[in-house]
């Protein structure tokens, strides 16, 4: 059943994962500042049993458990990093929708800049070459001689 839903979702670029879900009224914290932090954090944490959904917008029971857990930690006085660290120590890096900037993830994080710089460098070099190098229409001395030789008999 789940497999069918997945296939369907994979077909059309739609996330087709059951009916409306996410934060339930009974989870919401009384303190609006803490609640806002909880929502921000939740949006960055993966619902481990879902297809690429954050716990903030999944109705899976596990997502609910995690949302409650995040709020418990916040009420207990953890800062955002401590909450993240706590969840990573429990569930592994998989729980983070934004991977950490670590040596292993260097390729991921640096690609945008790398492509930009390599592209800019190629453009700069290409431009310098085309400015300094003679145009393709110019003939070498040997070619000029050859041309002159070819043209001579006609005159």
């Amino acid at each position: 059943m789940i497999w069918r839903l997945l296939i369907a979702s994979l077909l059309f670029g739609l996330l087709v994962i059951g009916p409306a879900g996410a934060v339930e009224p009974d989870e919401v914290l009384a303190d609006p500042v803490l609640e806002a932090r909880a929502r921000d954090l939740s949006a960055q944490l993966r619902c481990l049993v879902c297809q690429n959904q954050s716990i903030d917008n999944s109705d899976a029971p596990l997502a609910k458990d995690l949302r409650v857990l995040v709020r418990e930690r916040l009420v207990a006085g953890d800062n955002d990093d401590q909450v993240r660290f706590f969840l990573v120590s429990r569930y592994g890096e998989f729980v983070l929708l934004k991977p950490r900037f670590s040596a292993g993830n260097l390729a991921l994080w640096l690609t945008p800049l790398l492509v930009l710089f390599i592209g800019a460098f190629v453009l700069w070099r290409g431009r310098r070459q085309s400015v300094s190098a003679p145009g393709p229409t110019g003939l070498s001395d040997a070619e000029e001689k050859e041309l002159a030789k070819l043209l001579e008999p006609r005159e």
Partner: protein
Amino acid sequence: MIAALSAAEIGHYSLILGLALALIQSTLPLIGARIGDSRLMAVGGATALAAFAYVAIAFAALTIAYVGSDFSVKNVWENSHSAKPMLFKVTGVWGNHEGSMLLWVLILVLFGALVAAFGRNLPDTLRATVLAVQGWIASAFLLFVLVTSNPFARLDPAPLEGRDLNPILQDIGLAIHPPLLYLGYVGFSIAFSFAVAALIDGRIDAAWARWVRPWTLTAWMFLTAGIAMGSYWAYYELGWGGWWFWDPVENASFMPWLAGTALLHSAIVMEKRSALKIWTILLAILTFSLSLLGTFLVRSGVLTSVHAFASDPARGVFILTILTIFIGGALALFAWRAPGLRKGGLFAPISREGALVFNNLFLIAATATVFVGTLYPLVVEAVSGSKISVGAPFFELTFGPLMIPVLLAMPFGPLLAWKRGDLTAVAQRLTIALAAAVIAVIVTLVIAGASGVLAALGIGLGFWLIAGALVELAERIRLFRTPLSTSWSRLKGLPRSAFGVALGHAGIGMCVLGIVAVKSFETEVIETIAPGQTLKVAGFALRFDGTTPRTGPNYREDVSRFTVTWKGSREITLEPTRRFYQTRKSETTEAAIHTMIFSQVYLAIGDTRSDGAIVVRAYHKPLITLIWLGAVVMSLGGMVSLTDRRLRIGAPKRLRQRKGKHTQPAAAS
């Protein structure tokens, strides 16, 4: 009855004939082009048209099986039900892997047939080679359908009733989204075929770009509309009001869009200035390669997990093979032949060409970002076995900043002169656009307060883009600098492509406005309320009147009725529902949406408690429709450009006439 029973076999046989024709189309015209035999070359057009006819017959046959609920066809049994409304019986044809693959192939051969039909004034060898390359792709995918995904397989004995279509797909969205998306995805195959043909011929000129541009524009236009439609579908179907998820499947269609947008712009440089030839060829190859990659990602199951792919690899390996042969082959051909292509004209960094190169640089960096973000988890899992996630927060942090320079520079591009532009003069002309942006920033700050600085800048950016697009038009008709009547006649005389550019760029501005507004100023209320109680969202009062059951054709639903008023104005009724589909034993939510031109009130319901109270998610989404309207305007821009005189009538003929006069710029470069 006998006709209906044998429809599947006719379809299957037609598909095989289609493959045979595609194989002929792949070979004979190419041989003809090599040895200069015009009769062999002419085979390309005929086979392309015939292959389309046969695949269309196959598609019609499957549709007949669906419409007649012929459950002896396995595919129909798996995805249809006799009680399903007729619309969904038809759209159900492509609401599954096999059927949608057939639609994919149908659109592929349709494009081949279009080249055959409308490409009569192409040079013969180019046309033959393009059709042959198109034939290779068609052969590969027809073989894929026949070998791994045959939609015509029978069941014996035939079941009495079908298993119904996935309820979430039983929506008008299924009728629109996949066909548009595939027209876009697959449409880029034409640019690919032209690129490969140019490499095989070893020759490429401005006429080539003149031909590739409208095809690219067509594909891009459909892809834009298709992605927007998918986004809106997800928005109203998923029940929490998100409209873009950075899901790998979405990224799979977004990557060809980004690369295709870059291609659209580089092809302009190539057509007008004969520059960036090699780069344009490479982009054409990359864009369709990303379409193929998307097909692989979506079809192979590799996204679920690398292990899921490994456990049932038949389809995945087949597409991966196609992918490797086509992308690898094209890139190898490129590496071999491209250095021999003549380089084009020179230009100063500050020029129209320079602006378009700038656009390409950032769009490609953005494409690479989405590419790496999408594939990185797969690579990590395959290499080290550990699982990591790359989701929305990553893309927002990396993709977003890459887009800002492009957007800021966008109004400058069309105003800069070719070869060497004057940045100061252009900046002066854009003063009005800048003023509009600054006013928008100030107004937003006044309304939202100091906390809304980022939002204000985003709104300002949106106004900068829209005003910039209008300024470009105003400049071209010399508005307020000549008498209005002169401006009016200039406006009528403008090429349609000028309007296309303005619409395309203004559309992006609209998207930016919508995205920023909804991200910054959305209001969300999640509450449990009992019948008779009222909920307040951003000045709207939503009174819950109660829930009543209803029966649909193949489902039952609980309809919750809400009366919405805004500051005592006219009452509106909203009816969010929850549906239960018996056959699949599954449930969907249908959000209720009230649209006020640009803003929406969005209402979705969750569980009903025993006392009749329900969980309500209510949102006010300011300016959200601008996101999709912007995409529609962009698509429209593409369509307007396509009707440009230059593309409608005898472009190659006029080019030939002018060639004599136009040797001057070529020599100068």
